[in-house]
C-alpha cells in the first residue's frame, strides 16, 4: 500500500472546519447562543449588586465560557456520533482519538471567539491585576477548559442520543456555573451550604481567579490546596476520558 505522509495539522483543522467554521457560516445564530449564557448571568449579577460585583462576575463569565465549551463539546460529539455516525467513520480511519478530540475542543474555542473577545475586553476594563495575576488567570482558565473538555468527551461516549446529551448539558450548566460561587464571592454562601460548593471544581477555579484580582484572600495554604484539587480533578478526568472512553465500542 502507498504510504501517506499524514498531517496532524490537517486532522485538527478538519474538526475545526466541520464543527465550528462551516457550522457558524450556516447558522450564525450559534454565535448569539454562545454569547448569551455568560453575558446574561453577568448582567443579572451586576444589576443585582448595583455594579459592585461586575469585576467578579466578569471573571465568572470567563469560567462559564470555558465550561460551556465542554458542555457544547459533549452535545456536538454526541450528535456527530449518534445521529451522523461520523465518529464511527473517524474510528475506522487513521485519525487517533486524541487528535479528533483535540480538534473538536479547539473548535469549541473557535466558536466562542466573539464571546471571549468581549469578555477579555470587559476583564481588561474592570478587573485590575498584575502581569503575574493575568498569567495565573490564563492558566486557571486553561485548566478549567481542559477539565470541561475531558468531562464533555467522557459524557459523550456514554450518551446514546442527542436527547440524553441535552439532559447532560442541562445538568452540567447549573451545577458547574450557576450554583457554585463563580459569579459571586464564596463568602455570600452561608454555612453549611458553603461546603457543598466545594464539590464543584469551578469553585476552586473561581477562588484562584478571585484571589489573583484581590476579590478573595485565600492564604498560601488554601491557594495551594485549590490548585492541587483543580489540577488533580482535571488530570483524573483527562485520564478517564483518554483511557476509559469508548473510542472502539465494547
Amino acid at each position, binding site marked *: 500500500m*502507498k504510504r501517506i505522509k*499524514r*498531517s496532524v495539522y*490537517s486532522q485538527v483543522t478538519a474538526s475545526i472546519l466541520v464543527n465550528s467554521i462551516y457550522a457558524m457560516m450556516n447558522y450564525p445564530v450559534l454565535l448569539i447562543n454562545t454569547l448569551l449564557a455568560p453575558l446574561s448571568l453577568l448582567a443579572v449579577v451586576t444589576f443585582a449588586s448595583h455594579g459592585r460585583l461586575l469585576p467578579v462576575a466578569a471573571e465568572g463569565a470567563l469560567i462559564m465560557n470555558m465550561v460551556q465549551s465542554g458542555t457544547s463539546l459533549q452535545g456536538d460529539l454526541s450528535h456527530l456520533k449518534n*445521529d451522523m455516525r461520523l465518529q464511527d467513520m473517524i474510528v475506522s*480511519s487513521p485519525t487517533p482519538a486524541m487528535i479528533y478530540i483535540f480538534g473538536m475542543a479547539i473548535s469549541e474555542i473557535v466558536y466562542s471567539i466573539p464571546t471571549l473577545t468581549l469578555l477579555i475586553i470587559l476583564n481588561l476594563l474592570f478587573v485590575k491585576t498584575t502581569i503575574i495575576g493575568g498569567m495565573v488567570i490564563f492558566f486557571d482558565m486553561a485548566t478549567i477548559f481542559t477539565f470541561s473538555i475531558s468531562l464533555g468527551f467522557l459524557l459523550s461516549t456514554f450518551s446514546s442520543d442527542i436527547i440524553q446529551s441535552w439532559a447532560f448539558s442541562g445538568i452540567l450548566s447549573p451545577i458547574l456555573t450557576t450554583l457554585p460561587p463563580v459569579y459571586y464571592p464564596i463568602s455570600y454562601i452561608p454555612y453549611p451550604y458553603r461546603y457543598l460548593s466545594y464539590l464543584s471544581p469551578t469553585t476552586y477555579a473561581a477562588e484562584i481567579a478571585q484571589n489573583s484580582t484581590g476579590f478573595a484572600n485565600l492564604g498560601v495554604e488554601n491557594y495551594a490546596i485549590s490548585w492541587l484539587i483543580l489540577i488533580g480533578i482535571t488530570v483524573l478526568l483527562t485520564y478517564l476520558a483518554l483511557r476509559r472512553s469508548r473510542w472502539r465500542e465494547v
Partner: protein
Amino acid sequence: MEIIAKSLTKIYDGKYKALDTVDLDINLNGIFSIIGKNGAGKTTLIRILSTQLMPTSGTAILNGHDILREAGKVREEIAAVPQEARAVPWLTPIQTVTSYLMWRGYTFSKAKQMGLDALRSMGLENLENQKNRKLSGGQKRKLMVATVIASEASIIFLDEPTTGLDYISRKELWEILRKLKKDRLIILTTHYLEEAEVLGDLITILDKGKIMDSGTIGDLRSKIKYPFVLKVYSPQFDIEMKNGRISRVSDNEFFIYGSESEIYSLVQDMINRKVRFTVEEVSLSNIFENLVGGGEED
C-alpha cells in the same frame, strides 16, 4: 487484499450471541458481499473488522495486521461507511469529502482535489457546492460512498449502502462499485439478494451469527441439491419427478427445481405440451431460502 478472521465471537450484554465463531479467509481484489436476515450479525461483523467494535473473543487479520493488537495499522488501510451514516446537513458535498480526507491527514488542497475527483466519479460534480440537506436520499448515499472511495484505503466497508435507494440509483451505484473494485477489496453488506448476486465476487451467507456458506455464486449453486429451475407458466400442470421439488408460485405459475439432467429431460415434455416455460440456474434468493429458510429478508 486479505482478511482472515479467526473464531470471531460477539456476545452483547453477556447473553445475546450476535456472532458465533466466525472464520473467514479472503484474498481478493473485488467485492465481498455479506448477506443475511436482519439480526444475522452482518453489521456486527463489519463493525468488528473495521475496528469500531471489540469482539468478545477471536480476532482478525487485515492485510497482515491484527485488529486488536495493531488497530492503528489496520486503520491506515481501511475506510468505512456505517449503515446509518448521514451527510452532515450544514456541509456541502465538497466540504464533506474534503474534511474526511483531511481527517485522514491530507492537506486541504490535496483533499479538495481528491474530493472533486471522487464527486465526479459519482456523478455529483454539479452538486459540489449544494448544501447536503438539499440533496436527495440517493445523492446523500452516493456522497457517503464518495467520501470513502476518495481515500487511499485499500479495504472499504460499506454497510447496506443502497438501502432506501430506488432501483435506478441502486444500479448507478452498482456501476460505480464495479469500477472501483479493481484495486480494492470492498466489503458490502446488503439485504438485496439481487445486489449481492450481481456485485459479489465472493458471497457469505450469515444466519444467527454463524456462516452458513461462502464462495462465488457458482460455488454456492454447486453445493445445493437442485441448482436449476424450470419455470412453467400454466394454470394446470401435472408431472412426476423422481428427484426434484415442485413449487406452485401462483395460479398460473409452477417452479420445478432439479438437477441439470433432470430439468433438461423435462424440457422436451414441455415442448410437446406446448406450455410456455423458461430454464434458469437458481438465483441467490433460492440458495438463501434453501440455507436460511424464508425469502428475501426484508
